[in-house]
Protein backbone atom coordinates (compact mmCIF):
# COMPACT_ATOMS: atom_id res chain seq x y z
CA UNK A 1 0.00 0.00 0.00
CA UNK A 2 1.26 3.46 -0.88
CA UNK A 3 2.39 5.24 2.26
CA UNK A 4 0.03 8.04 3.28
CA UNK A 5 -2.73 7.00 0.90
CA UNK A 6 -5.80 4.96 1.68
CA UNK A 7 -6.49 1.93 -0.45
CA UNK A 8 -9.31 3.78 -2.21
CA UNK A 9 -7.07 6.78 -2.89
CA UNK A 10 -4.29 4.56 -4.16
CA UNK A 11 -6.63 2.71 -6.51
CA UNK A 12 -8.05 5.98 -7.72
CA UNK A 13 -4.54 7.29 -8.48
CA UNK A 14 -3.58 4.08 -10.25
CA UNK A 15 -6.79 4.11 -12.23
CA UNK A 16 -6.31 7.65 -13.41
CA UNK A 17 -2.78 6.86 -14.50
CA UNK A 18 -3.96 3.75 -16.31
CA UNK A 19 -6.68 5.63 -18.13
CA UNK A 20 -4.12 8.17 -19.29
CA UNK A 21 -1.98 5.32 -20.51
CA UNK A 22 -5.00 3.80 -22.22
CA UNK A 23 -5.44 6.92 -24.26
CA UNK A 24 -1.84 6.92 -25.49
CA UNK A 25 -1.18 6.13 -29.17
CA UNK A 26 -0.84 2.40 -29.75
CA UNK A 27 -2.48 1.50 -26.47
CA UNK A 28 -6.01 2.73 -27.10
CA UNK A 29 -8.86 0.20 -26.97
CA UNK A 30 -9.61 0.51 -30.67
CA UNK A 31 -6.27 -1.10 -31.44
CA UNK A 32 -7.21 -4.44 -29.91
CA UNK A 33 -9.29 -7.16 -31.53
CA UNK A 34 -12.71 -8.22 -30.26
CA UNK A 35 -11.17 -11.48 -29.10
CA UNK A 36 -8.49 -9.65 -27.17
CA UNK A 37 -11.11 -7.41 -25.64
CA UNK A 38 -13.25 -10.40 -24.63
CA UNK A 39 -10.35 -12.18 -23.00
CA UNK A 40 -9.09 -9.09 -21.23
CA UNK A 41 -12.50 -8.06 -20.05
CA UNK A 42 -13.29 -11.53 -18.78
CA UNK A 43 -10.09 -11.56 -16.76
CA UNK A 44 -10.85 -8.14 -15.39
CA UNK A 45 -14.39 -9.09 -14.39
CA UNK A 46 -13.04 -12.24 -12.81
CA UNK A 47 -10.76 -10.10 -10.72
CA UNK A 48 -13.73 -8.30 -9.22
CA UNK A 49 -15.20 -11.52 -7.85
CA UNK A 50 -18.86 -12.31 -7.18
CA UNK A 51 -18.88 -15.31 -9.51
CA UNK A 52 -21.84 -16.99 -7.85
CA UNK A 53 -24.13 -14.00 -8.32
CA UNK A 54 -23.01 -13.47 -11.90
CA UNK A 55 -23.65 -17.14 -12.69
CA UNK A 56 -27.23 -16.85 -11.42
CA UNK A 57 -27.85 -13.85 -13.66
CA UNK A 58 -26.16 -15.53 -16.62
CA UNK A 59 -28.22 -18.67 -16.22
CA UNK A 60 -31.47 -16.73 -16.44
CA UNK A 61 -30.37 -14.13 -18.98
CA UNK A 62 -31.01 -16.10 -22.17
CA UNK A 63 -27.89 -14.61 -23.80
CA UNK A 64 -25.03 -16.54 -25.43
CA UNK A 65 -21.43 -15.84 -24.55
CA UNK A 66 -20.76 -14.78 -28.14
CA UNK A 67 -23.58 -12.26 -28.05
CA UNK A 68 -22.40 -11.00 -24.68
CA UNK A 69 -18.88 -10.52 -26.03
CA UNK A 70 -20.22 -8.69 -29.06
CA UNK A 71 -22.37 -6.47 -26.88
CA UNK A 72 -19.40 -5.48 -24.75
CA UNK A 73 -16.60 -5.39 -27.31
CA UNK A 74 -18.09 -4.41 -30.66
CA UNK A 75 -18.08 -0.72 -29.82
CA UNK A 76 -16.86 1.56 -27.07
CA UNK A 77 -14.31 -1.12 -26.35
CA UNK A 78 -12.33 -0.73 -23.15
CA UNK A 79 -8.58 -0.59 -23.44
CA UNK A 80 -6.75 -3.52 -21.96
CA UNK A 81 -4.88 -1.23 -19.68
CA UNK A 82 -8.01 0.57 -18.61
CA UNK A 83 -9.56 -2.69 -17.51
CA UNK A 84 -6.46 -3.90 -15.78
CA UNK A 85 -7.36 -2.06 -12.60
CA UNK A 86 -10.65 -2.03 -10.75
CA UNK A 87 -10.99 1.73 -11.00
CA UNK A 88 -10.61 1.79 -14.77
CA UNK A 89 -13.04 -1.05 -15.20
CA UNK A 90 -15.57 0.54 -12.89
CA UNK A 91 -15.41 3.79 -14.81
CA UNK A 92 -15.94 2.05 -18.12
CA UNK A 93 -18.81 0.00 -16.72
CA UNK A 94 -20.41 3.07 -15.14
CA UNK A 95 -20.30 4.95 -18.44
CA UNK A 96 -21.83 1.97 -20.24
CA UNK A 97 -24.48 1.62 -17.55
CA UNK A 98 -25.45 5.29 -17.83
CA UNK A 99 -25.70 4.98 -21.59
CA UNK A 100 -27.88 1.88 -21.21
CA UNK A 101 -30.15 3.65 -18.74
CA UNK A 102 -30.45 6.71 -20.95
CA UNK A 103 -31.38 4.50 -23.90
CA UNK A 104 -33.75 2.33 -21.85
CA UNK A 105 -31.66 -0.79 -22.41
CA UNK A 106 -32.82 -2.54 -19.22
CA UNK A 107 -34.79 -5.68 -18.43
CA UNK A 108 -35.72 -7.88 -15.50
CA UNK A 109 -33.54 -10.95 -14.96
CA UNK A 110 -34.34 -13.11 -11.94
CA UNK A 111 -36.37 -10.15 -10.69
CA UNK A 112 -33.45 -7.71 -10.89
CA UNK A 113 -33.83 -4.76 -13.22
CA UNK A 114 -30.46 -4.83 -14.99
CA UNK A 115 -28.79 -2.95 -17.81
CA UNK A 116 -27.67 -4.78 -20.92
CA UNK A 117 -24.06 -4.17 -19.91
CA UNK A 118 -24.60 -5.81 -16.52
CA UNK A 119 -26.33 -8.77 -18.13
CA UNK A 120 -23.60 -9.19 -20.75
CA UNK A 121 -20.90 -8.89 -18.10
CA UNK A 122 -22.53 -11.67 -16.09
CA UNK A 123 -22.68 -13.93 -19.13
CA UNK A 124 -19.11 -13.19 -20.19
CA UNK A 125 -17.82 -13.87 -16.70
CA UNK A 126 -19.74 -17.11 -16.34
CA UNK A 127 -19.40 -18.48 -19.85
Amino acid at each position, binding site marked *: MTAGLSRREALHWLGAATLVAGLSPGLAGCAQSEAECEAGLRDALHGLG*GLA*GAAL*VAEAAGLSRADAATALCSSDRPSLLATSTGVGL*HRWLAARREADLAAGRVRFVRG*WLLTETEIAAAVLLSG
Partner: protein
Amino acid sequence: MLGSARRVPEGATLHADVCIVGGGAAGITIAQALAGSHRRVLLLESGGLQTDARTQALYAGRVEGHGQPPLDASRLRFFGGTTNHWAGLCGPLDPLDFERRPWVPHSGWPLSRETLDPWYLEAQKVCDLGPFDYGEDAWGFFAETPERIAATGTRFAITQHSTPTRFGEKYREALRRASNVQVLLHANALELVPSPDGARVARVEASTLEGRRFRVEAGAIVLACGTVENARLLLLSTGADPAGLGNARGLVGRFFLDHPRLRPAGVVLWRDADARRLAENTVRDGVKATLSLCLDRTVQKREGLLQSSLFTDAYHPPESAPGLDEADAAIAEWLALLAGDADPASLSVCWLRSEQAPRPESRVRLSDELDALGQRRVVLEWRLGELDRHTHEQAARLYAHALTRAGVASVELAAKVLDAGDDPWQRVTSDWHQMGTTRMAAGPADGVVDAGCRVFGVDNLYVAGASVFPTGGWMNPTLTLVALALRLADRLRSGT
Protein backbone atom coordinates in the same frame (compact mmCIF):
# COMPACT_ATOMS: atom_id res chain seq x y z
CA MET B 1 -67.98 13.68 33.08
CA LEU B 2 -67.27 10.00 32.89
CA GLY B 3 -69.88 7.45 33.89
CA SER B 4 -71.19 3.98 33.25
CA ALA B 5 -74.41 2.91 31.59
CA ARG B 6 -74.61 0.19 34.23
CA ARG B 7 -75.82 2.93 36.59
CA VAL B 8 -78.47 4.32 34.24
CA PRO B 9 -81.96 3.28 35.40
CA GLU B 10 -83.65 0.65 33.26
CA GLY B 11 -85.89 2.30 30.64
CA ALA B 12 -84.49 5.79 31.24
CA THR B 13 -84.45 8.43 28.54
CA LEU B 14 -81.31 10.56 28.40
CA HIS B 15 -81.26 13.91 26.62
CA ALA B 16 -78.47 15.74 24.83
CA ASP B 17 -77.88 18.26 22.08
CA VAL B 18 -75.38 15.96 20.45
CA CYS B 19 -75.17 12.18 20.92
CA ILE B 20 -71.93 10.63 19.69
CA VAL B 21 -71.97 6.87 19.18
CA GLY B 22 -68.44 5.55 19.59
CA GLY B 23 -65.39 6.62 21.59
CA GLY B 24 -62.58 6.16 19.10
CA ALA B 25 -60.47 8.74 17.26
CA ALA B 26 -63.45 10.42 15.55
CA GLY B 27 -65.86 10.36 18.51
CA ILE B 28 -63.34 11.56 21.06
CA THR B 29 -62.14 14.31 18.70
CA ILE B 30 -65.68 15.65 18.31
CA ALA B 31 -66.43 15.42 22.05
CA GLN B 32 -63.17 17.16 22.87
CA ALA B 33 -63.83 19.88 20.27
CA LEU B 34 -67.28 20.51 21.77
CA ALA B 35 -66.03 20.54 25.37
CA GLY B 36 -66.66 23.96 26.89
CA SER B 37 -69.25 24.89 24.28
CA HIS B 38 -72.92 25.49 25.01
CA ARG B 39 -73.85 22.08 23.53
CA ARG B 40 -74.71 19.20 25.88
CA VAL B 41 -72.80 16.21 24.58
CA LEU B 42 -73.38 12.54 25.38
CA LEU B 43 -70.82 10.04 24.10
CA LEU B 44 -71.86 6.36 24.14
CA GLU B 45 -68.93 3.94 24.36
CA SER B 46 -69.53 0.20 24.18
CA GLY B 47 -66.48 -0.76 26.19
CA GLY B 48 -64.90 0.40 29.40
CA LEU B 49 -61.49 1.91 30.01
CA GLN B 50 -59.76 -1.41 29.40
CA THR B 51 -60.34 -4.21 26.96
CA ASP B 52 -62.55 -7.09 28.00
CA ALA B 53 -63.24 -10.24 26.07
CA ARG B 54 -67.05 -10.20 26.17
CA THR B 55 -67.30 -6.68 24.75
CA GLN B 56 -64.57 -7.34 22.20
CA ALA B 57 -66.47 -10.41 21.03
CA LEU B 58 -69.29 -8.11 19.84
CA TYR B 59 -66.96 -7.27 16.95
CA ALA B 60 -66.71 -10.84 15.67
CA GLY B 61 -67.97 -11.41 12.15
CA ARG B 62 -67.28 -13.29 8.97
CA VAL B 63 -64.69 -12.30 6.39
CA GLU B 64 -65.06 -13.23 2.72
CA GLY B 65 -63.15 -12.38 -0.44
CA HIS B 66 -59.54 -11.31 -0.20
CA GLY B 67 -57.65 -11.71 3.03
CA GLN B 68 -58.80 -9.47 5.84
CA PRO B 69 -57.74 -9.87 9.46
CA PRO B 70 -60.40 -11.21 11.86
CA LEU B 71 -62.92 -8.47 12.62
CA ASP B 72 -62.51 -8.89 16.37
CA ALA B 73 -58.72 -8.45 16.04
CA SER B 74 -58.40 -5.55 13.61
CA ARG B 75 -60.48 -3.24 15.82
CA LEU B 76 -60.61 -2.58 19.55
CA ARG B 77 -63.87 -1.99 21.40
CA PHE B 78 -63.07 0.09 24.46
CA PHE B 79 -62.58 3.79 25.19
CA GLY B 80 -60.07 5.10 22.65
CA GLY B 81 -61.14 2.50 20.10
CA THR B 82 -58.61 1.28 17.60
CA THR B 83 -56.17 4.06 18.58
CA ASN B 84 -55.42 1.71 21.47
CA HIS B 85 -53.32 -0.34 19.06
CA TRP B 86 -52.62 1.88 16.05
CA ALA B 87 -49.07 2.49 14.85
CA GLY B 88 -49.57 6.25 14.67
CA LEU B 89 -48.59 6.91 11.04
CA CYS B 90 -50.18 10.07 9.69
CA GLY B 91 -50.35 12.31 6.67
CA PRO B 92 -52.92 14.17 4.61
CA LEU B 93 -54.48 12.74 1.50
CA ASP B 94 -53.02 14.03 -1.74
CA PRO B 95 -54.94 16.80 -3.56
CA LEU B 96 -55.40 14.33 -6.42
CA ASP B 97 -57.32 12.01 -4.08
CA PHE B 98 -60.13 14.56 -3.89
CA GLU B 99 -60.43 14.97 -7.66
CA ARG B 100 -62.48 12.98 -10.06
CA ARG B 101 -60.08 10.87 -12.12
CA PRO B 102 -61.60 9.57 -15.36
CA TRP B 103 -59.47 6.42 -15.14
CA VAL B 104 -60.72 5.60 -11.61
CA PRO B 105 -64.45 4.76 -11.53
CA HIS B 106 -66.38 6.28 -8.59
CA SER B 107 -63.50 8.64 -7.76
CA GLY B 108 -63.84 12.22 -6.52
CA TRP B 109 -64.85 13.82 -3.25
CA PRO B 110 -67.52 16.54 -3.01
CA LEU B 111 -64.92 18.74 -1.33
CA SER B 112 -61.36 19.73 -2.15
CA ARG B 113 -58.15 19.22 -0.26
CA GLU B 114 -58.01 23.01 0.13
CA THR B 115 -61.28 22.90 2.05
CA LEU B 116 -59.83 20.40 4.46
CA ASP B 117 -56.43 22.05 4.93
CA PRO B 118 -57.42 24.26 7.93
CA TRP B 119 -58.75 21.15 9.67
CA TYR B 120 -55.63 19.15 8.86
CA LEU B 121 -53.70 21.91 10.60
CA GLU B 122 -55.73 21.36 13.78
CA ALA B 123 -55.70 17.58 13.39
CA GLN B 124 -51.88 17.66 13.54
CA LYS B 125 -52.17 18.88 17.13
CA VAL B 126 -54.85 16.38 18.08
CA CYS B 127 -52.59 13.56 16.88
CA ASP B 128 -49.42 14.98 18.50
CA LEU B 129 -47.64 15.54 15.20
CA GLY B 130 -45.18 18.15 13.98
CA PRO B 131 -45.93 21.05 11.68
CA PHE B 132 -48.36 20.62 8.81
CA ASP B 133 -45.43 20.45 6.44
CA TYR B 134 -45.06 17.39 4.26
CA GLY B 135 -42.30 18.60 1.93
CA GLU B 136 -39.21 16.42 2.15
CA ASP B 137 -36.91 19.46 2.22
CA ALA B 138 -38.52 20.62 5.47
CA TRP B 139 -37.45 17.40 7.17
CA GLY B 140 -33.80 17.45 6.07
CA PHE B 141 -33.64 13.93 4.76
CA PHE B 142 -31.01 14.69 2.17
CA ALA B 143 -27.83 16.73 2.26
CA GLU B 144 -28.74 17.53 -1.30
CA THR B 145 -32.08 16.48 -2.71
CA PRO B 146 -31.45 13.83 -5.34
CA GLU B 147 -33.20 15.61 -8.17
CA ARG B 148 -32.37 12.64 -10.37
CA ILE B 149 -35.07 10.66 -8.57
CA ALA B 150 -37.64 13.42 -8.98
CA ALA B 151 -36.84 13.56 -12.69
CA THR B 152 -38.06 10.00 -13.20
CA GLY B 153 -41.79 10.65 -12.79
CA THR B 154 -41.78 10.20 -9.04
CA ARG B 155 -41.95 12.50 -6.05
CA PHE B 156 -41.23 12.17 -2.36
CA ALA B 157 -43.88 11.82 0.32
CA ILE B 158 -43.59 12.28 4.08
CA THR B 159 -45.42 10.25 6.70
CA GLN B 160 -45.27 11.61 10.25
CA HIS B 161 -45.33 9.34 13.29
CA SER B 162 -47.68 10.09 16.15
CA THR B 163 -46.34 8.97 19.53
CA PRO B 164 -48.81 7.07 18.87
CA THR B 165 -51.50 9.01 20.67
CA ARG B 166 -53.88 6.76 22.59
CA PHE B 167 -56.98 8.93 22.34
CA GLY B 168 -58.69 7.27 25.29
CA GLU B 169 -55.77 7.89 27.61
CA LYS B 170 -54.83 11.33 26.35
CA TYR B 171 -58.26 12.94 26.31
CA ARG B 172 -59.93 11.08 29.19
CA GLU B 173 -59.16 13.66 31.87
CA ALA B 174 -60.18 16.64 29.75
CA LEU B 175 -63.50 14.97 28.97
CA ARG B 176 -63.98 14.00 32.61
CA ARG B 177 -63.56 17.65 33.57
CA ALA B 178 -65.83 19.02 30.81
CA SER B 179 -69.15 19.91 32.44
CA ASN B 180 -71.06 19.82 29.14
CA VAL B 181 -69.76 16.39 28.08
CA GLN B 182 -70.81 13.05 29.48
CA VAL B 183 -68.97 9.92 28.44
CA LEU B 184 -71.08 6.86 29.16
CA LEU B 185 -69.10 3.64 29.18
CA HIS B 186 -70.58 0.14 28.64
CA ALA B 187 -73.29 1.74 26.46
CA ASN B 188 -74.08 -0.14 23.24
CA ALA B 189 -76.20 1.60 20.61
CA LEU B 190 -78.62 -0.99 19.22
CA GLU B 191 -80.76 0.93 16.77
CA LEU B 192 -81.50 4.41 15.50
CA VAL B 193 -85.26 4.85 15.65
CA PRO B 194 -86.61 7.32 13.08
CA SER B 195 -89.35 9.89 13.53
CA PRO B 196 -92.73 8.94 12.00
CA ASP B 197 -91.92 10.78 8.78
CA GLY B 198 -88.50 9.16 8.64
CA ALA B 199 -86.78 12.51 8.21
CA ARG B 200 -85.00 12.50 11.58
CA VAL B 201 -83.65 10.13 14.17
CA ALA B 202 -86.05 10.32 17.07
CA ARG B 203 -83.97 8.32 19.52
CA VAL B 204 -81.10 5.92 19.96
CA GLU B 205 -81.95 2.62 21.60
CA ALA B 206 -79.11 1.43 23.78
CA SER B 207 -78.23 -1.34 26.20
CA THR B 208 -75.50 -2.55 28.44
CA LEU B 209 -74.06 -5.98 27.75
CA GLU B 210 -75.98 -7.17 30.82
CA GLY B 211 -79.29 -6.15 29.20
CA ARG B 212 -80.10 -2.85 30.92
CA ARG B 213 -82.01 -0.91 28.26
CA PHE B 214 -82.26 2.87 27.91
CA ARG B 215 -82.67 5.44 25.18
CA VAL B 216 -81.16 8.74 24.09
CA GLU B 217 -82.97 11.63 22.49
CA ALA B 218 -80.70 14.21 20.92
CA GLY B 219 -80.81 17.09 18.50
CA ALA B 220 -78.00 15.58 16.48
CA ILE B 221 -76.67 12.05 16.31
CA VAL B 222 -73.14 11.29 15.19
CA LEU B 223 -72.17 7.75 14.25
CA ALA B 224 -68.48 7.39 15.07
CA CYS B 225 -68.05 3.70 15.75
CA GLY B 226 -65.76 2.76 12.89
CA THR B 227 -66.11 1.87 9.23
CA VAL B 228 -67.73 -1.52 9.73
CA GLU B 229 -69.94 -0.63 12.70
CA ASN B 230 -71.20 2.65 11.22
CA ALA B 231 -72.63 0.70 8.30
CA ARG B 232 -73.82 -2.09 10.59
CA LEU B 233 -75.82 0.26 12.83
CA LEU B 234 -77.49 1.90 9.83
CA LEU B 235 -78.38 -1.51 8.39
CA LEU B 236 -79.73 -2.61 11.79
CA SER B 237 -81.96 0.49 11.99
CA THR B 238 -84.95 -0.73 10.01
CA GLY B 239 -87.75 1.34 11.62
CA ALA B 240 -88.40 3.38 8.48
CA ASP B 241 -87.02 1.12 5.79
CA PRO B 242 -86.28 -2.62 5.99
CA ALA B 243 -83.11 -1.93 4.01
CA GLY B 244 -81.82 0.27 6.81
CA LEU B 245 -81.58 3.93 7.66
CA GLY B 246 -80.14 6.17 4.93
CA ASN B 247 -80.11 3.19 2.62
CA ALA B 248 -82.81 4.06 0.10
CA ARG B 249 -80.27 3.60 -2.72
CA GLY B 250 -78.75 0.45 -1.28
CA LEU B 251 -75.35 2.11 -0.83
CA VAL B 252 -74.87 1.63 2.92
CA GLY B 253 -72.08 -0.87 3.46
CA ARG B 254 -70.86 -0.72 -0.12
CA PHE B 255 -67.53 0.59 -1.45
CA PHE B 256 -65.55 -0.84 1.45
CA LEU B 257 -61.90 0.13 1.03
CA ASP B 258 -58.57 -0.92 2.48
CA HIS B 259 -54.98 -0.38 1.42
CA PRO B 260 -53.71 -3.42 -0.48
CA ARG B 261 -50.07 -4.05 0.39
CA LEU B 262 -47.32 -5.99 -1.35
CA ARG B 263 -44.72 -6.81 1.27
CA PRO B 264 -42.01 -7.52 0.51
CA ALA B 265 -42.16 -6.21 -3.03
CA GLY B 266 -38.44 -6.58 -3.52
CA VAL B 267 -34.92 -5.56 -2.57
CA VAL B 268 -33.03 -2.34 -3.18
CA LEU B 269 -29.23 -2.22 -3.43
CA TRP B 270 -28.26 1.40 -2.86
CA ARG B 271 -25.55 2.94 -5.03
CA ASP B 272 -25.87 6.41 -3.55
CA ALA B 273 -25.39 7.10 0.15
CA ASP B 274 -27.65 10.17 0.12
CA ALA B 275 -30.46 8.42 -1.70
CA ARG B 276 -30.23 5.64 0.88
CA ARG B 277 -31.84 8.08 3.32
CA LEU B 278 -35.10 6.97 1.71
CA ALA B 279 -34.79 3.87 3.85
CA GLU B 280 -34.21 5.74 7.10
CA ASN B 281 -36.41 7.78 9.41
CA THR B 282 -35.62 11.27 10.56
CA VAL B 283 -36.64 13.22 13.65
CA ARG B 284 -37.53 16.91 13.84
CA ASP B 285 -38.57 18.53 17.10
CA GLY B 286 -39.22 15.13 18.58
CA VAL B 287 -41.47 13.94 15.74
CA LYS B 288 -40.35 11.03 13.60
CA ALA B 289 -40.96 11.00 9.86
CA THR B 290 -40.64 8.44 7.11
CA LEU B 291 -39.94 9.15 3.46
CA SER B 292 -41.41 7.22 0.56
CA LEU B 293 -41.80 7.55 -3.19
CA CYS B 294 -44.99 8.27 -5.10
CA LEU B 295 -45.78 8.42 -8.78
CA ASP B 296 -46.54 11.80 -10.34
CA ARG B 297 -50.12 12.47 -11.34
CA THR B 298 -49.04 12.67 -14.98
CA VAL B 299 -47.61 9.15 -14.75
CA GLN B 300 -50.73 7.88 -12.99
CA LYS B 301 -52.91 9.37 -15.68
CA ARG B 302 -50.76 8.10 -18.54
CA GLU B 303 -50.57 4.57 -17.14
CA GLY B 304 -54.11 4.50 -15.74
CA LEU B 305 -53.00 3.83 -12.18
CA LEU B 306 -54.33 4.29 -8.69
CA GLN B 307 -52.32 6.12 -6.04
CA SER B 308 -49.44 4.20 -4.52
CA SER B 309 -46.27 4.61 -2.52
CA LEU B 310 -43.04 2.66 -2.35
CA PHE B 311 -41.43 2.35 1.08
CA THR B 312 -37.93 1.10 1.74
CA ASP B 313 -36.93 -0.27 5.11
CA ALA B 314 -33.49 -1.03 6.48
CA TYR B 315 -32.66 -4.67 5.87
CA HIS B 316 -32.07 -6.72 8.97
CA PRO B 317 -31.67 -10.33 7.91
CA PRO B 318 -33.28 -12.66 7.93
CA GLU B 319 -36.66 -11.91 9.53
CA SER B 320 -37.46 -8.62 7.82
CA ALA B 321 -36.68 -9.78 4.31
CA PRO B 322 -38.22 -13.14 3.65
CA GLY B 323 -38.05 -12.29 -0.05
CA LEU B 324 -34.26 -12.05 -0.01
CA ASP B 325 -32.85 -15.53 -0.39
CA GLU B 326 -29.24 -16.64 -0.83
CA ALA B 327 -29.43 -16.16 -4.58
CA ASP B 328 -30.60 -12.56 -4.23
CA ALA B 329 -27.82 -11.91 -1.75
CA ALA B 330 -25.24 -13.37 -4.17
CA ILE B 331 -26.52 -11.22 -7.03
CA ALA B 332 -26.53 -8.14 -4.81
CA GLU B 333 -22.95 -8.85 -3.85
CA TRP B 334 -21.89 -9.22 -7.49
CA LEU B 335 -23.68 -6.01 -8.51
CA ALA B 336 -21.96 -4.16 -5.69
CA LEU B 337 -18.56 -5.48 -6.81
CA LEU B 338 -19.39 -4.52 -10.38
CA ALA B 339 -20.35 -0.99 -9.36
CA GLY B 340 -17.25 -0.55 -7.26
CA ASP B 341 -18.73 2.06 -4.98
CA ALA B 342 -21.76 0.18 -3.66
CA ASP B 343 -21.73 -1.68 -0.41
CA PRO B 344 -23.23 -5.18 -0.72
CA ALA B 345 -24.59 -4.67 2.79
CA SER B 346 -26.40 -1.50 1.70
CA LEU B 347 -29.67 -3.28 1.09
CA SER B 348 -33.24 -2.33 1.82
CA VAL B 349 -36.46 -4.23 1.61
CA CYS B 350 -39.06 -2.36 -0.40
CA TRP B 351 -42.80 -2.66 -0.12
CA LEU B 352 -45.71 -1.14 -1.92
CA ARG B 353 -48.96 0.24 -0.57
CA SER B 354 -51.65 1.29 -2.99
CA GLU B 355 -55.05 2.84 -3.14
CA GLN B 356 -57.96 0.47 -3.69
CA ALA B 357 -60.35 1.22 -6.53
CA PRO B 358 -63.86 1.88 -5.13
CA ARG B 359 -66.16 -1.00 -6.05
CA PRO B 360 -69.75 -1.58 -4.87
CA GLU B 361 -69.07 -5.33 -4.57
CA SER B 362 -66.55 -4.64 -1.81
CA ARG B 363 -68.92 -4.34 1.09
CA VAL B 364 -70.21 -4.89 4.60
CA ARG B 365 -73.56 -6.66 4.99
CA LEU B 366 -75.49 -8.27 7.81
CA SER B 367 -75.30 -12.00 8.48
CA ASP B 368 -77.91 -14.13 10.19
CA GLU B 369 -75.67 -14.82 13.17
CA LEU B 370 -76.42 -12.88 16.33
CA ASP B 371 -74.08 -11.39 18.91
CA ALA B 372 -74.56 -11.35 22.69
CA LEU B 373 -76.89 -8.35 22.38
CA GLY B 374 -79.08 -10.19 19.85
CA GLN B 375 -77.79 -7.98 17.03
CA ARG B 376 -77.01 -9.40 13.61
CA ARG B 377 -73.29 -9.75 13.02
CA VAL B 378 -71.58 -8.61 9.84
CA VAL B 379 -70.00 -10.17 6.81
CA LEU B 380 -67.08 -8.21 5.37
CA GLU B 381 -66.40 -8.90 1.70
CA TRP B 382 -63.13 -7.34 0.59
CA ARG B 383 -63.15 -7.37 -3.21
CA LEU B 384 -60.32 -6.18 -5.37
CA GLY B 385 -60.41 -5.82 -9.13
CA GLU B 386 -58.47 -5.43 -12.34
CA LEU B 387 -57.44 -1.83 -11.67
CA ASP B 388 -55.93 -2.89 -8.35
CA ARG B 389 -53.98 -5.71 -10.00
CA HIS B 390 -52.79 -3.42 -12.79
CA THR B 391 -51.66 -0.81 -10.25
CA HIS B 392 -49.65 -3.31 -8.19
CA GLU B 393 -47.80 -4.72 -11.15
CA GLN B 394 -47.23 -1.56 -13.14
CA ALA B 395 -46.44 0.74 -10.21
CA ALA B 396 -43.86 -1.72 -8.83
CA ARG B 397 -42.13 -1.79 -12.21
CA LEU B 398 -42.21 1.98 -12.52
CA TYR B 399 -40.63 2.46 -9.09
CA ALA B 400 -37.91 -0.05 -9.97
CA HIS B 401 -37.24 1.79 -13.23
CA ALA B 402 -37.23 5.17 -11.46
CA LEU B 403 -34.61 4.18 -8.89
CA THR B 404 -32.52 2.37 -11.48
CA ARG B 405 -32.69 5.14 -14.08
CA ALA B 406 -31.80 7.72 -11.45
CA GLY B 407 -28.61 5.74 -10.96
CA VAL B 408 -29.11 5.54 -7.20
CA ALA B 409 -29.95 1.85 -6.83
CA SER B 410 -30.34 -1.57 -8.34
CA VAL B 411 -33.75 -3.05 -7.67
CA GLU B 412 -35.00 -6.61 -7.49
CA LEU B 413 -38.74 -7.23 -7.61
CA ALA B 414 -40.09 -10.38 -6.03
CA ALA B 415 -41.28 -13.07 -8.41
CA LYS B 416 -44.82 -12.78 -7.06
CA VAL B 417 -44.83 -9.10 -8.07
CA LEU B 418 -43.62 -9.68 -11.61
CA ASP B 419 -45.79 -12.72 -12.16
CA ALA B 420 -48.60 -13.46 -9.75
CA GLY B 421 -49.61 -16.58 -11.65
CA ASP B 422 -53.23 -17.68 -11.51
CA ASP B 423 -54.07 -15.89 -8.31
CA PRO B 424 -52.98 -12.24 -8.32
CA TRP B 425 -54.48 -11.73 -4.85
CA GLN B 426 -52.42 -14.27 -2.95
CA ARG B 427 -49.60 -11.72 -2.79
CA VAL B 428 -51.79 -8.93 -1.39
CA THR B 429 -52.40 -8.30 2.28
CA SER B 430 -54.62 -5.86 4.11
CA ASP B 431 -53.08 -2.84 5.80
CA TRP B 432 -55.89 -2.86 8.42
CA HIS B 433 -57.15 0.52 7.17
CA GLN B 434 -60.90 0.11 6.94
CA MET B 435 -62.63 2.86 4.93
CA GLY B 436 -65.72 3.44 2.81
CA THR B 437 -69.20 1.89 3.53
CA THR B 438 -70.96 5.27 4.11
CA ARG B 439 -69.22 7.20 1.37
CA MET B 440 -69.45 10.94 0.90
CA ALA B 441 -70.93 12.23 -2.35
CA ALA B 442 -72.46 15.28 -3.97
CA GLY B 443 -75.87 13.60 -4.14
CA PRO B 444 -77.75 10.56 -2.77
CA ALA B 445 -77.37 8.62 -6.01
CA ASP B 446 -73.64 8.26 -5.37
CA GLY B 447 -73.23 8.13 -1.64
CA VAL B 448 -74.63 7.97 1.87
CA VAL B 449 -73.52 11.32 3.34
CA ASP B 450 -73.11 14.80 1.92
CA ALA B 451 -69.99 16.97 2.01
CA GLY B 452 -70.91 17.97 5.56
CA CYS B 453 -71.07 14.30 6.65
CA ARG B 454 -74.86 14.43 7.05
CA VAL B 455 -76.79 11.33 5.97
CA PHE B 456 -78.87 12.08 2.89
CA GLY B 457 -82.54 12.24 3.81
CA VAL B 458 -82.04 12.19 7.60
CA ASP B 459 -81.76 15.74 8.91
CA ASN B 460 -80.05 15.17 12.24
CA LEU B 461 -77.85 12.16 11.51
CA TYR B 462 -74.13 12.53 10.82
CA VAL B 463 -71.32 10.05 10.22
CA ALA B 464 -67.74 10.55 11.38
CA GLY B 465 -64.75 8.39 10.59
CA ALA B 466 -63.07 6.82 7.60
CA SER B 467 -66.37 5.25 6.54
CA VAL B 468 -67.19 8.51 4.74
CA PHE B 469 -64.11 8.32 2.49
CA PRO B 470 -65.20 7.90 -1.17
CA THR B 471 -61.57 7.05 -2.02
CA GLY B 472 -58.75 6.29 0.34
CA GLY B 473 -55.50 7.26 -1.41
CA TRP B 474 -52.47 5.40 -0.08
CA MET B 475 -51.94 7.37 3.12
CA ASN B 476 -52.94 6.10 6.56
CA PRO B 477 -56.47 7.39 7.20
CA THR B 478 -56.41 8.68 10.79
CA LEU B 479 -55.28 12.27 10.17
CA THR B 480 -57.96 12.74 7.53
CA LEU B 481 -60.73 11.27 9.67
CA VAL B 482 -59.67 13.51 12.57
CA ALA B 483 -59.67 16.55 10.26
CA LEU B 484 -63.17 15.67 9.06
CA ALA B 485 -64.31 15.15 12.66
CA LEU B 486 -63.02 18.59 13.64
CA ARG B 487 -64.84 20.11 10.70
CA LEU B 488 -68.04 18.32 11.70
CA ALA B 489 -67.63 19.44 15.32
CA ASP B 490 -67.38 23.02 14.15
CA ARG B 491 -70.69 22.61 12.37
CA LEU B 492 -72.31 20.95 15.38
CA ARG B 493 -71.01 23.65 17.68
CA SER B 494 -72.90 26.28 15.76
CA GLY B 495 -75.96 24.05 15.63
CA THR B 496 -76.39 24.25 11.86
